[in-house]
């Protein structure tokens, strides 16, 4: 009986730990205010957000706004959208849904100018702002 209870407890513990693990969740899109307020807590978590994405020379960034942005996050996409061979042909400026591993509290991006970064990122250009 005790053995059964221990087994069940271990199973429950395993299931709970799985539900809060850092797994990719594409369906839940965080707002920029949530990113701003919970940035420390989100460090190491997979996040998904909608922002103004720019891929240009030495820039691979998602912003909270197309103009007069207040928050910027360096992006390392899984695709080659930010590689120089791509951006010199066609720089990207578009709203996009960015999903990936969130980092905060360090110096990220070129010259370490960014306080936050999303790596291993899926960048889906779309009118997600609407």
């Amino acid at each position, binding site marked *: 009986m005790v053995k059964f209870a221990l087994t069940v407890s271990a199973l429950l513990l395993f299931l709970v730990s799985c539900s809060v693990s850092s797994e990719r969740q594409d369906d839940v899109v965080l707002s920029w205010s949530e990113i701003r307020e919970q940035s420390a807590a989100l460090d190491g978590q997979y996040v998904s957000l909608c922002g103004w994405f*720019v891929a*240009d*020379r*030495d*820039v691979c960034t998602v912003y909270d706004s197309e103009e007069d942005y207040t928050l910027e996050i360096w992006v*390392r996409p899984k695709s*080659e959208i930010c*590689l*120089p*061979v791509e951006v*010199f042909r066609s720089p990207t400026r578009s709203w996009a849904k960015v999903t990936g591993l969130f*980092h905060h509290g*360090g*110096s*990220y*991006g*070129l*010259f*370490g*100018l960014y306080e936050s*970064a999303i*790596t291993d990122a899926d960048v889906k250009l779309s009118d997600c702002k609407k």
Partner: protein
Amino acid sequence: MRGSFANGAVTAAMSYAFASMGSGGRSGTGDDVSVTGCGSRLGCAPDDSPWLPEYLKSYPGTSDPMLDAAAVAALTPLRLRPDGEWVGYIQFRGPVGYVASQPQFLAFQEQGNALVVDLSVPQDAVAIYHTHPAMNRRATGARAFNSAQNSFGPGDHHVVYQRGIPNYLKMPNQGISVLEMQPIGAISRTVVPPRTRW
């Protein structure tokens, strides 16, 4: 946009004060620092920069010959590559003068932790330097690609506005330019004229 002239202004003032105290070649002051501006083949002599308007010459941080020399000394030996960029920064070390960090190569799509922390520029850095990628001339599309790398891009402006310090760049045409804050905004200036059409 966050920006400040503080570093540049202090740098310029101090550099003029120490203009005659430069020492040559490589300095072994520890860490990753190795190259000083003075002692380079350009030396530390004042740069006349005839193409620069007089009102800009008088602005602190503008056309600082020692800082230019340090950047040129760091950038000149770097061989441009298609798969990444060389980056580094310059600090002011009192009587030693301007000291450039060892250049660090940042490969595109690099995996591992370097992917996240590309380069942390110390708060007391007075300038940064970097290269743009360049393809082998014989490669398909190299001409167009390299031409596109011969100027400052949005990311280059970003660092100048955010940190307020000059950003030196070596381009595929072998020229070296600097983007620096002026009263009217970020202005580029040629430090070493280009040697090739690309």
